[in-house]
């Protein structure tokens, strides 16, 4: 804004004919009644009395002849109100604001403001009736490609660190204390293989949470909910239900509790039944292990397809529930404030990223550690068992395995891993690590501690450089990757390729995506809606998972993909 000119003049505001006449009459009354206004300007005091300003009326009442003047002012104000239909204070304020507005118009030249902001322009596309949904899926695709591609060098690095130096340090300590063979087996084959197998995915989770926070803090997540509103109405819900579902991409437990913001109980129950179909971060390790083992550079696409399939199945399940046990009640309008787009603060992104990943690491140190120890026991009982398939775990898993045979993986190892996944989905990976890798790797020649530290540092630097190259190669026309720059195969990848085909791997991913929610999620559903809904969730998801995986494997085999 530019102030054109300033000047100081002896100024008196004109309140208009009728008001000015009453002011003049009151000023005459001051003289007639020999009313001394003291330190107050006469005109100002007359206006304040006509406005019935409580403070001024109180002061005037104490002055000589004040009562008479107040009476005359009240008569004048009443007269004005009867003529103009409003209180005098509103009439005077209107004149003042009108005058100010006139002054501003004459003295200020505002640069022409573009009323259409950048946010409006972006929203025209991302919330468009037809483009909004493809944009949403494209954004999710890019995010998951970035998560998988950029983090994969770090996953290889973590795998090398855990199975190399870390395992060697444990072996060194166990040698130092002359630990018995069973303790060496428990620590190396149980704890390191189980917990380490899950901790390998920490870089991927850091990346996932970073991008989810980026989408949220930039303001795009609100647009996603808005875009999905139309989609959600197909299943008798509205966009408000999509917000818990977005949370479900992180973890289903807080997402189930987030349904509390939905007004209708029916909508809350339906949303909670659909939330576990969103791919939580615990499933990501399973996707990554199988994706990288069987699909290499296309792993990101496969993982994105799993996320999209989760949403699709949620839509179908929602439609089925809406037409059966959860018929819709009165649907309310979805009102959502779309905040302007803003540049996210790096500190906020990093905090968000770390707080969520910390939960995962904490779970690895508690639930998964405990499960790994129990798994090790079950794999080694009865004591001294030679073959794992003859252990208690092997026998129980072998009994369950035929259920999974039509899905393409009727072996006891996979059956057992899927059963343990009921505790937490990432345990599927830790169980497979224990079964396939436990005891398989003995350290070569132990390196000196300083050499280990140096190799960890060099490995990290290599991973960072490779990640940077992958990130830059996303730009069209830029290719910094060498032809043979595929990530190194992990020991688990090699083991899985001996036991699965790409088709049975996809079938397994579909099953892991859809089958029974983890025990913590079922606990949250029971807590919020009762045991019957928790049982409903467990049963329907397991049935849907089996049917979907069956269709994938059998139809794929018929089409010659087997």
């Amino acid at each position, binding site marked *: 804004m530019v102030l054109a000119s300033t000047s100081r003049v002896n100024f008196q505001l004109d309140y208009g004919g009728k008001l000015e006449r009453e002011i003049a009459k009151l000023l005459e009354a001051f003289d007639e009644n020999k009313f001394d206004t003291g330190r107050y300007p006469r005109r100002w005091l007359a206006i304040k009395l006509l406005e019935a300003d409580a403070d001024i009326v109180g002061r005037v009442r104490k002055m000589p002849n004040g009562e008479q003047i107040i009476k005359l002012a009240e008569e004048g104000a009443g007269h004005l109100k009867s003529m103009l239909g409003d*209180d005098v204070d*509103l009439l005077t304020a209107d004149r003042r*604001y009108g005058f100010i507005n006139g002054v501003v118009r004459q003295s200020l030249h505002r640069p022409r403001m573009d009323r259409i902001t950048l946010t409006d322009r972006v929203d025209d596309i991302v919330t468009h009736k037809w483009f909004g949904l493809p944009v949403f899926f494209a954004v999710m695709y890019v995010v998951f490609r970035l998560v998988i591609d950029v983090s994969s060098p770090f996953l290889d690095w973590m795998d090398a660190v855990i199975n190399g130096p870390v395992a060697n340090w444990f072996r060194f300590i166990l040698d130092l204390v002359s630990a018995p063979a069973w303790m060496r087996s428990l620590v190396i084959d149980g704890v390191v293989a189980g917990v380490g197998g899950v901790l390998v995915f920490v870089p991927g989770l850091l990346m996932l949470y970073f991008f989810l926070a980026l989408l949220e803090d930039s303001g795009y997540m609100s647009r996603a909910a808005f875009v999905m509103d139309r989609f959600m109405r197909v299943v008798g819900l509205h966009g408000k239900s999509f917000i818990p579902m977005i949370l479900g991409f992180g973890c289903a437990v807080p997402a189930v509790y987030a349904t509390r913001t939905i007004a209708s109980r029916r909508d809350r129950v339906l949303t909670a039944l659909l939330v576990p179909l969103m791919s939580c971060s615990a499933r990501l390790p399973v996707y990554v292990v199988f994706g990288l083992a069987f699909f290499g550079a296309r792993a990101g696409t496969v993982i994105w397809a799993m996320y999209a399939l989760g949403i699709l199945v949620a839509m179908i399940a929602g439609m089925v529930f809406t037409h059966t046990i959860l018929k819709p009640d009165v649907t309310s309008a979805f009102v959502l404030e779309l905040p302007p787009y803003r540049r996210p603060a790096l500190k906020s992104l990093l905090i968000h990223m770390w707080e969520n990943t910390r939960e995962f690491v904490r779970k690895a140190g508690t639930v998964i550690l405990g499960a790994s120890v129990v798994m090790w026991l079950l794999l080694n009982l009865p004591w001294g068992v030679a073959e794992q398939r003859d252990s208690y775990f092997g026998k129980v898993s072998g009994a369950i395995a035929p259920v999974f045979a039509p899905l393409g993986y009727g072996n006891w190892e996979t059956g057992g891993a899927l059963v343990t996944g009921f505790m937490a989905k990432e345990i599927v990976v830790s169980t497979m690590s224990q079964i396939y890798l436990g005891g398989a790797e003995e350290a070569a020649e132990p390196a000196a501690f300083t050499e280990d530290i140096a190799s960890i540092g060099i490995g990290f630097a290599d991973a960072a450089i490779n990640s940077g190259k992958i990130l830059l190669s996303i730009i069209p026309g830029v290719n910094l990757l060498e032809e043979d720059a595929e990530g190194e195969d992990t020991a688990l990848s090699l083991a899985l390729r001996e036991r699965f085909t790409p088709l049975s791997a996809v079938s397994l991913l579909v099953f892991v995506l859809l089958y029974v929610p983890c025990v913590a999620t079922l606990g949250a559903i029971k807590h919020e809606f009762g045991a019957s809904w928790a049982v409903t969730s467990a049963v329907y998801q397991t049935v849907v998972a089996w049917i979907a995986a069956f269709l994938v494997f059998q139809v794929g085999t018929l089409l010659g993909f087997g």
Partner: protein
Amino acid sequence: MLNQLLYLLETKENGLSLAEIGREMNAQPSAVLSMLDLLVRKGRILEVGPDNKICSTCGLEAHCSLLAARGKRYVLARPGSPQVSLTEAGPHPA
């Protein structure tokens, strides 16, 4: 100006936010705020929260997180009108 503002609100059944009023009147929100305060004091308009309940009758107004997040709206005081009724007024979650 006040009449212009009252006329504007008369045409908006669901009221307007401070920013919207500023835009409609081609004025800075801070310039419009004192007019709105005056009209609220005089009972000509009402401040309502995002849930259409009247803020001035709510004891939690000062601590209302909903209000802090979404801001007030201003509606013309029309006793008995369906969207704003003094009898419906009550606190929303703070």
